[in-house]
């Protein structure tokens, strides 16, 4: 079944970096895009403007996914654009430390945004997708989770959890034309990774950091009609890091 008219993609954490690139890529593929942001309204507006300049349609929608029920986010996206038939759970936070030094609040904050919020968003998103017999959910996981990374036990747990959730939800809703997949970026050039040491790149077989647009291209594919038979999987965009 082809994507219904007026289908909207809601991308969380889309004011900059990977999320902004995803929003632009989906808009270029014909999705109306709800550009969610927590605090960077200017960034979200810039993403919307870039989409509109390229001939697409988008709206900036504020709200912290960690704040609990996402009904308001979905209502805003639906009212301003159309039914949310694609969800990209991209919003993420880091609070790195060695496991022995991770405070409970830093554990909870990372699991709260990266995993709990993604579940609440997914649960809420499935509703209109079931009705439409069409849906695309893409969870932005990480190479960290499937792979160890000292200093990120909380982040790894959340991202590994996201991959587990992806598989099971995919299984539950597959017969309704809804696909659920994960994209696992490796070392990507964003604000979130700019404080990492440069020699991290030496461990990457491709010997370079990835670009947000390269992650976005994977999401664009998984959200497309071409990927209708791809579900429950994780697509690594990591320059070979996990190979």
């Amino acid at each position, binding site marked *: 079944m082809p994507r219904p008219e007026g289908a909207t993609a809601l991308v969380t954490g889309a004011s900059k970096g990977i999320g902004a690139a995803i929003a632009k890529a989906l808009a270029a593929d014909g999705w109306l895009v709800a550009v969610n942001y927590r605090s960077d309204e200017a960034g979200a507006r810039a993403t919307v403007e870039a989409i509109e300049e390229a001939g697409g349609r988008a709206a900036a929608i504020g709200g912290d996914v960690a704040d609990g029920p996402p009904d308001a986010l979905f209502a805003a996206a639906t009212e301003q654009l159309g039914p949310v038939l694609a969800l990209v759970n991209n919003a993420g936070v880091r609070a790195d430390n060695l496991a022995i030094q991770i405070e409970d609040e830093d554990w909870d904050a990372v699991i709260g945004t990266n995993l709990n919020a993604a579940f609440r968003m997914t649960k809420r998103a499935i509703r209109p997708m*079931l009705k439409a017999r069409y849906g695309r959910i893409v969870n932005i996981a990480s190479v960290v989770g499937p792979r160890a990374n000292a200093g990120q036990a909380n982040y790894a747990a959340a991202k590994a959890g996201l991959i587990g959730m992806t598989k099971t939800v995919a299984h*539950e*809703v597959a017969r309704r034309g809804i696909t659920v997949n994960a994209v696992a970026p490796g070392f990507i050039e964003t604000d979130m990774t700019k404080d990492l040491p440069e020699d991290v790149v030496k461990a990457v077989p491709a010997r370079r950091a990835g670009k947000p647009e390269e992650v976005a291209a994977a999401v664009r594919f998984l959200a497309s009609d071409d990927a209708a038979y791809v579900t429950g999987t994780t697509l690594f965009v990591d320059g070979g890091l996990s190979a």
Partner: protein
Amino acid sequence: MATAVTPEAVEKVVFDALPQFGADPSDITREATFEDLDVDSLDLAELSQIIEDEFGVQLKGDDVGKIKTVGDAIDLVVSRAG
């Protein structure tokens, strides 16, 4: 505004909804089991949402897990609304 919950109104919504999950309309009765109608757990979860949208009655997963027949579902909705 949600529709008033009467056994007749709930029965109509449920009977009307079931064919979209593949149930044969001629097999749909209050006594029919969801198993007989080939209506599975995802179908029931979706039926719960249709009921919530129509009547404003929320059914929890635990509730839905216990019902066996179409009549059980109708009675459950009516009792939850009361």
